[in-house]
């Protein structure tokens, strides 16, 4: 089938304003949008810039806006759009560096702000080996371990668009992953951080994040659980 691909283009060194280039490419229904981009870059216009790495939905580097929705180009099949017009744009809410590449630094800054690592200064267990955890305790935060930090959720959030200082769903998901981990002792610290004006209370349960997540994490639910933990102090 023939697909008309409209691609957002912007090169800050020459362009004063962004434009859209249209490429007509021959594609198979089972091709991924990433394949279209690779084909355009390889055979039509070598200046097209976009990020990719694994090509299998696990590195999180190719989140972009495809026909208006945030998704991973490597997980988006051409046949699933129900049209042969495909518009590809960079993520919203972050500065465009070139074409489909955005500046992820503000995103990672929010991520780092929630202390996304195990905090536990207590002495190691007697045998000096691992801190054990029951399957049920592990299950408690299983969903939020799946995050690949692609930023599809945070950049689909209207609260984040309105104010980039909002810590955003991805950071809350990664805080959740440790707050509810029975081996961790940093929950109070993280909840304190998320209880600030730019923390969880900026979430208005728009559910855009849950819809955008390529890992199908129940993000809005995770945010609600963090809100509840702040209100009740309960971590179970």
């Amino acid at each position, binding site marked *: 089938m023939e697909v008309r691909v409209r691609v957002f283009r912007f090169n800050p060194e020459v362009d004063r304003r962004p434009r859209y280039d249209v490429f007509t490419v021959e594609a198979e229904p089972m091709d991924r949008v990433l394949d279209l981009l690779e084909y355009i870059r390889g055979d039509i216009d070598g200046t097209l810039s976009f990020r990719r790495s694994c090509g299998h939905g696990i590195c999180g580097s190719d989140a972009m806006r495809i026909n208006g929705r945030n998704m991973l180009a490597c997980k988006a099949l051409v046949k699933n759009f129900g049209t042969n017009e495909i518009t590809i744009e960079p993520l919203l809410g972050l500065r465009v560096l070139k074409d489909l590449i955005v500046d992820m630094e503000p995103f990672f800054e929010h991520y780092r702000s929630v202390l996304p690592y195990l905090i536990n200064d207590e002495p190691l267990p007697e045998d000096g080996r691992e801190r054990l955890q029951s399957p049920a305790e592990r299950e408690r935060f299983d969903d939020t371990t799946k995050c690949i930090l692609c930023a599809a959720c945070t950049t689909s959030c*209207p609260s984040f668009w*309105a*104010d980039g200082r909002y810590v955003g769903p991805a950071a809350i998901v990664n805080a959740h992953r440790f707050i509810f981990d029975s081996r961790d002792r940093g929950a*109070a610290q993280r909840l*304190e951080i998320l*209880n*600030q004006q730019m923390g969880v*209370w900026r979430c208005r349960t728009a559910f855009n994040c849950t819809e955008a997540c390529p890992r199908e994490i129940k993000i809005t639910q995770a945010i609600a659980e963090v809100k509840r933990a*702040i209100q009740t*102090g309960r971590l179970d």
Partner: protein
Amino acid sequence: MASFTQTLRRVRVKPNYETIAWKWMRYSAFAMIPLVWGHMILQDVIVGVHRIDLDYVAMRWASLFWRIYDALLLGFAFAHGVNGLRQVLNNFIHGDRARKVMNWLLFLFWLVITLIGGAALIAGVNRAFPLP
């Protein structure tokens, strides 16, 4: 076999303005479900807006029950709405100073309207019922 000790994990997070405002939105919303529905069905369906006049208000406020009902409606619904407005405006007003000014203006707005409403509720309609 490994054994696990299930410890109940609890922390204390100091409540702040945001925590309280969030909780207020939830509780007031619960209170508003019966209050607002009752109000709407009575005023808009049973009585009808075109029949609401001073006569009707005097009759309604002749009963302490309706005065308390209206006071609750004023207390819960209006503060809920103004806090919602604050959330919306937060999307557009970003500076710390501007936000402070906005918060104060909203507070004054809330206070003035609530006082006027409260005064009306307490004073009632200053005419004997039934009206001549």
